[in-house]
């Protein structure tokens, strides 16, 4: 189904190999490919559907893929060598913001309601805290699922629990399950709740399997979710192709956010090569319309794909993620934060690709002396993201 755009000059001899996970937010990659935006930029791309984040990481690290649809924290983890061999990966383009939520089983929800009939208490986790405190030592520990240890889902869930005074490592158990299996685990009471991207939260509500408590947006404000991450070696060797791909993805993101294209978008994504599911169930990823549950989903919580504030790399978010990694004991030793952020979240290439002037950068930097204090303050919950999200910065 390749659409070749006319009058284009190919920039390379080998197609660029790009991996993706069949999730709603792989849309910009699918669209750039299917609508010929890559071709229009003179780039041949081979999309490859991958089964796990671990597989994406390994294949990019060992050059079986040049780049991929990645969790925003994945290039940071790979560049630091946590959970893997140390491989420099980087990103200069964010493909999406938001889309996550915390959903709990009907059984747990009933218990929460017993401990508070105040909506705020349920959303803030206060009711959960009271319920956990009331449990006998012999009662089974509550289990929550996330999709990957180095992910926004893990950090948002942990942050939400910690803010409610719940210790994510002692008071509950956190396990990993693939997104597509979340609902069946919840139905079978194998888990009591999860933090995952859409449509798995809305579908749980729609099918009467669970209740959405909070969205990722409620917890952190607008924050990057997935990025176009590449092997740094490949980026250095193919600068023109790389910049052309950023332009194509930028175009694709605009296309995805244009409501006029929605039915075409859903039918593209639902194809067997991509998400392989009914188009109707994908609508929740792109719509303000949420199934009727106990709570209204805040308008800004749904995924956003386009706009300079969405697509440019946000170094202060990388800093925030590093602080989360440190907070949850994922870092064996503390690296130079500024250096890691500069190497992994490369803002200048985003501006260069789109022919924009790169603004004076570096305002996000913290001094070497501040690092320890910063990490400690994040760990204790004293430093937060601005309620509007990372765009407004980190609040000291």
């Amino acid at each position, binding site marked *: 189904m390749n659409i070749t755009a006319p009058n284009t000059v190919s920039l390379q001899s080998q197609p660029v190999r790009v991996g993706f996970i069949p999730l709603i937010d792989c849309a910009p990659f699918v669209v750039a490919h299917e609508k010929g935006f890559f071709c229009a930029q003179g780039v041949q791309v081979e999309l490859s559907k*991958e*089964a*796990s*984040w*671990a*597989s994406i*990481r*390994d*294949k990019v*690290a*060992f*050059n*079986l893929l040049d780049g991929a649809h990645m969790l925003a924290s994945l290039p940071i983890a790979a560049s630091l060598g946590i*959970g*893997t*061999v140390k491989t420099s990966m980087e990103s200069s383009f964010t493909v999406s913001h938001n889309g996550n939520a915390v959903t709990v089983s009907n059984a747990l929800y009933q218990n929460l309601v017993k401990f508070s009939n105040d909506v705020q208490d349920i959303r803030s986790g206060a009711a959960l805290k009271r319920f956990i405190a009331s449990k006998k030592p012999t009662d089974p520990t509550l289990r929550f699922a*996330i*999709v*990957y*240890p180095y992910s926004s889902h893990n950090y948002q869930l942990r942050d939400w629990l910690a803010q409610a005074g719940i210790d994510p490592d002692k008071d509950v158990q*956190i*396990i*990993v*399950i*693939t997104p*597509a*299996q979340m609902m069946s685990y919840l139905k079978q009471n194998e888990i009591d709740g999860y933090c995952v991207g859409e449509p798995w939260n809305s579908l749980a509500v729609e099918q009467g399997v669970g209740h959405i408590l909070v969205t990722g947006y409620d917890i952190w404000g607008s924050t990057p979710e997935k990025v176009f991450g590449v092997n740094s070696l490949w980026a250095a060797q193919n600068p023109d192709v790389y910049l052309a791909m950023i332009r194509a993805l930028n175009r694709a993101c605009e296309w995805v956010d244009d409501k006029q294209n929605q039915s075409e978008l859903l039918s593209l994504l639902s194809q067997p090569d991509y998400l392989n599911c009914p188009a109707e169930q994908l609508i929740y990823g792109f719509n303000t319309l949420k199934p009727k549950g106990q709570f209204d989903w805040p308008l800004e919580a749904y995924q956003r794909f386009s706009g300079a504030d969405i697509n440019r790399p946000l170094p202060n978010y990388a800093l925030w993620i590093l602080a989360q990694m440190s907070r949850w004991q*994922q870092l064996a030793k503390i690296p130079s934060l500024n250096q890691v952020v500069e190497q992994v979240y490369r803002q200048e290439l985003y501006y260069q690709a789109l022919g924009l002037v790169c603004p004076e950068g570096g305002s996000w930097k913290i001094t070497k002396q501040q690092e320890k204090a910063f990490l400690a303050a994040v760990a204790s919950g004293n430093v937060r993201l601005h309620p509007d999200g990372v765009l407004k910065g980190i609040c000291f």
Partner: protein
Amino acid sequence: MSPPEKELTVMLVDNEPARAAIVEQAMLDSGYRVIRRLENAQNLTQAVTESQPDMVIIDIESPDRDMLENMSRLTKDNPRPIVMFAEEDDSKYVEAAIRAGVSAYVVDGVQSGSVKALLQVAIARFREFQALRLELDSVKTQLEDRKVIEKAKGLIMKHQVCDEPAAYQALRKLAMDRSQRMIDVARNVISVMELLGEKR
């Protein structure tokens, strides 16, 4: 190889039962103990906790790998991704494994020599299976192609009122004139004939 290395216990996770059987046999032949074989990872976490294998071999295309990634983070006793052990100068075998579609998780303290030897066995069998599957696919395609060509021949025979060799010759000539493959010409013939058939 020294006896202690032979004591390595392995768990296989593969949703391809035929391949899993081949790999398991090869492991047994090489003196390793396959303590558990899972076809799907519904209870992967529990199985690893119960069986405590030294090494888990899992299909790289399995969505359940991310589950293992998390386990390895929780306690030091759980198997950790093989890629963590890939030193700069010695990453070839890990790369070979990834290329062959094998991923592996190893507990701390297992000698890297034993890991490599065991991985070699798995890589070889995964490759062998891959080759077999490619061959099978190509045989299947050939059979399918033959059916299509037969059908086109039949249509030509009916339409032109000719015998089989003549129909075959007609197809062959068409293919040569247009420098197309027989199968492509046959498909064209079928679609054209069907179109004509509908109009008639």
